[in-house]
């Protein structure tokens, strides 16, 4: 950790001493996003929540082709998560979470 503080010192001194041996010109940073879920499979359609739900994959092949990401994830108050498409069909029949049987109410939606 001594190294880190050392770097800090140098970093602060950058203004006075621009001729450091290596200077950053450009950085192309790569990150991956995924839904912040506890279980990465939707319990209703058994497809990974990162992929479009089964219905979306089958119905709108054309959209899936071009990577439309409309098939988002929804979290209930119970913190269980599903595809929004799957859940909105589910609640029409049974207004409970398929995993814990608590009454279903939406906590938040993925965006």
């Amino acid at each position, binding site marked *: 950790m001594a190294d880190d503080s050392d*770097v800090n010192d140098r*970093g602060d001194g950058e203004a006075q001493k621009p001729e450091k041996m290596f200077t950053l*010109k450009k950085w192309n940073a790569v990150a991956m996003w995924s839904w912040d879920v506890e279980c990465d499979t939707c319990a209703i359609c058994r497809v990974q929540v990162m992929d479009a739900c089964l219905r979306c994959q089958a119905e709108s092949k054309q959209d899936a082709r071009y990577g439309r990401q409309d098939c988002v994830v929804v979290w209930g108050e119970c913190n269980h998560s599903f595809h929004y498409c799957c859940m909105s069909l589910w609640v029409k029949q049974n207004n409970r979470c398929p995993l814990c049987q608590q009454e279903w109410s939406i906590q938040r939606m993925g965006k």
Partner: protein
Amino acid sequence: MAVAAMLKDKGQLMFEDKWPSMRPIILKLLQQEPVTQNEWQDLFYSVHLVCLWDEKGPPKVKEALKDDIMDFIKQAQQRVLSHQEDQALLKAYIAEWRKFFTQCNYLPTPFRQLETSLAGKTSSSVQKKAQNDESIVRKLMLDSWNQSIFCDIKQRLQDSAMKLVHAERNGEAFDSLLVIGVRESYVNLCSNPEDKLQIYRENFEKAYIEATEAFYKMKAPQYLQANGVQNYMKYADSKLREEEQRAHKYLESCSGSVQVLTDCCVNVLVSTFKSTILAECAGMIKANETERLQLMFKLMDRVPDGIQPMLHDLEEHIMSAGLADMVAAADVITQDSEKYVERLLELFKQFSVLVSKAFNDDPRFLTARDKAYRHVVNDTQVFRLELPAKQTGGLKAQPESKCPELLANYCDMLLRKTPLSKKLTSDEIESKLKDVLLVLKYVQNKDVFMRYHKAHLTRRLILDTSADSEKEENMVEWLREVGMPADYVNKLARMFQDIKVSEDLNQQFKETYRSSRGSIADSINIKILNAGAWARGSERVTVSLPLELEDYIPEVEDFYKKKHSGRKLQWYHHMSNGTITFSNAVGRFDVDVTTFQMAVLFAWNQRPLERIPYENLRLATELPDPELRRTLWSLVAFPKLKRQVLQYSPEVQSPKDFEENTMFWVNQEFALVKNGKLQRRGKINLVGRLQLSTERSKEEDNESIVQLRILRVQEAIIKILKMRKHISNAQLQSELVDILKNMFLPSKKMIKEQVEWLIEHKYMRRDEDDINTFIYMA
């Protein structure tokens, strides 16, 4: 009839009264002497009267007529038989027959009434219409001819005709009308309404075919012996054609005779020598004698099972020639995927030209080509990809052809900015990509190709090194068209979409931060991608970023959180990269580096001239050991550089030989050397092929291919069983191969293992009565 009964007593119209006046006219007609209009009409009238008024008239007329006809025929017979010589005999016969046959059409006309009366007695008048054609008198005439003259001399006629044909076969010319005339008499003579060609078939056709067969049975072996197989094939072919033409001339056209004759000729000329001819096939294929092969193909196609051995020879040739070619060029093609793919394609084209020139692209030969070519493509003799056999530890790895990997590499060379893609035109690249797809069709394990192709695409997109983004997207659609699994292709398509989304995001990020912190926005590009489409396995590697970079992370994360919710970000630093400026005593250089390389190099910023041991670099960067070794190696031994960025001591042969206390220092003499001259400024790319694949993920790659195959097999077995409920082992195997063919060819062993696993876990069971049948257990 009522009128007839009423006027019955008018006795002056009896047959006996009328016949004497009728007879001379009839005789004139038979002899084709001129008959006046009056006589002709009188005959009608007389027949009419006799039939109408004399109850016994009609049979009497018939009898009398018959006697006269017989008399006439006897005379004709004498005239014919007076000729001894064949041609003269035929000529005479045909002349007589023509005359007689013409009369067969005239003479019956006046006797219509007679026919009505005779028929009226035996059957109802309704049938008359149908029998219109077959007049009784005509039948009488033809039957008489048949029974007398024809039966007597038909053998002589036939023999004479056949002699003429024989003479023609030997090249002598003669009046072909003679033979045709004989045939016509055979055809027209028949009065059997069921089978008009009966007489013709039983006599003339039979004799013709027997004569033909006998002729070639004698000639063909002689010719073969004297001239050899190659010439014999030409002979047989030309004779077949010749005989077919001749048959059209001499045999009745719509009787099927020509076919019978052709079959007979094929049998004598080709079938008999089938094995002798076929023995030449392999050699001819090898020597690429397309014209002769075409001839052989034409001949053998007419023989049952004639093509089969040729197909076999073709397959053998393609396999052995293809493999021999590969083995001979092994040194080059194992090193160079471009050469390999082009060699493969050249072979394919070569074989295709052969099939097209020699066999007219006959589907059976195309299938044989495909089968053999598939074998060449998937052969493991020249190079193999070792896939670890999972789980069952002791078993040996099963080697596979490296072809799919090399195909993917070649694709990458075409799609990336490379010397190859730069020198080709857009159309050339497109046609080469199509070629790749063509070969891919023959690759058994397409899943390997998919994996490598995706890795290459990932690299191109992240490093922004695609030569042509339109072509990239076309390629994805082409892969869809050739039947690559939809979920795979969709993921590729999604990657393109992601890159576009990411560009927008990057734009927004820059705008947001430009005002507040100028420099940060300009020097950072972000790509935030969908983990579902891009990431695979546990390939993420941690690294302790230099502070210069570390500072950006929270900025980006904050920005992203404002845009989206419910998402978490993971940084993939092994994919990220950048440009740094390296200043030393010689000059200033812009260096493209990976983030790992950056992390290593920045360790010297605080102590530019120090020598740092390996161990300390590891502490500073926190890179896993294999990654650090690889990264360092790329800085001390970058292939293209004359002067390296880092120097080290003591010297080692490979990255794994670095010791804990191997010392590294920055080369203060670093410079680019161009044409032997030192450059003070310049740009150099050190990223190379290092990006994206971590040491660990490389090993995992092959392992996960196998793992994925196991899952796919299980999945497919269950899918089949769910549908079929119960299924035999053999059928299960073939359906499995069909379902999985666009991904890989499951080995028998793998199928067996997975069936056992599924049985053990009670997804299915064996039938108690038949252990080769499986039953689905819901």
